[in-house]
């Protein structure tokens, strides 16, 4: 069964450094999402992306964050200058298209640890 893949599985970064998290969505999917889960807390929506632009973003997704689809397969989340509170599990998800009544499928996540 096709799946969403994320790399790396674990990223350790010094505070203030830039980090890029990578995702390969399911190949026929058109909508892409990033969520994060701080340890012990809920999964929270960050951003959705369609047709090479952001569709929606949450309050968490401030100017430090950006997303990009640099080629036909990858979908990336960049955090420009990481803070301690960015430590979390970051999940990428994708879905087929908006009106298809198909669920979002999640990758295994990248655990980001900021030191």
């Amino acid at each position, binding site marked *: 069964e096709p799946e969403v893949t994320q790399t790396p599985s674990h990223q350790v970064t010094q505070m203030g450094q830039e980090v890029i998290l990578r995702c390969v969505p399911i190949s026929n999917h058109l*909508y892409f*999402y990033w969520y994060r889960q701080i340890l012990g807390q*809920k*999964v929270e*929506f960050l951003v*959705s992306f369609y047709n090479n632009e952001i569709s929606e973003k949450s309050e968490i997704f401030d100017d430090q964050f950006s997303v990009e689809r640099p080629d036909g397969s990858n979908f990336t989340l960049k955090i420009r200058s990481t803070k301690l509170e960015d430590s979390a599990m970051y999940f990428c998800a994708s879905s087929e298209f908006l009106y298809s*009544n198909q*669920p979002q499928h*999640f*990758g295994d996540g990248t655990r980001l640890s900021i030191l």
Partner: protein
Amino acid sequence: EDKVVQSPLSLVVHEGDTVTLNCSYEVTNFRSLLWYKQEKKAPTFLFMLTSSGIEKKSGRLSSILDKKELFSILNITATQTGDSAIYLCAVEGSGAGSYQLTFGKGTKLSVIP
């Protein structure tokens, strides 16, 4: 603000027991309610519910939605140790141009042999 509340937050049962997990929600422009199972990593899709009163079943798992009372339940019969996981309820609501999921805190289910 969209809100999803799950109960109980944790549950310990013995193998063979039947469990019911609850999810209540308030969301703008409701589109669907989804249940996911989260073991060590990715939330794995279980059910997507869009209509009231129609039960969805997959093996020992079933779920139903009540759009009038704004809740859903997830039932697991004849539980097995492999059912031990966090069960997440999420509601899909529409914004300007896409759908985003609002998650509950999850119910941690532990099944003891």
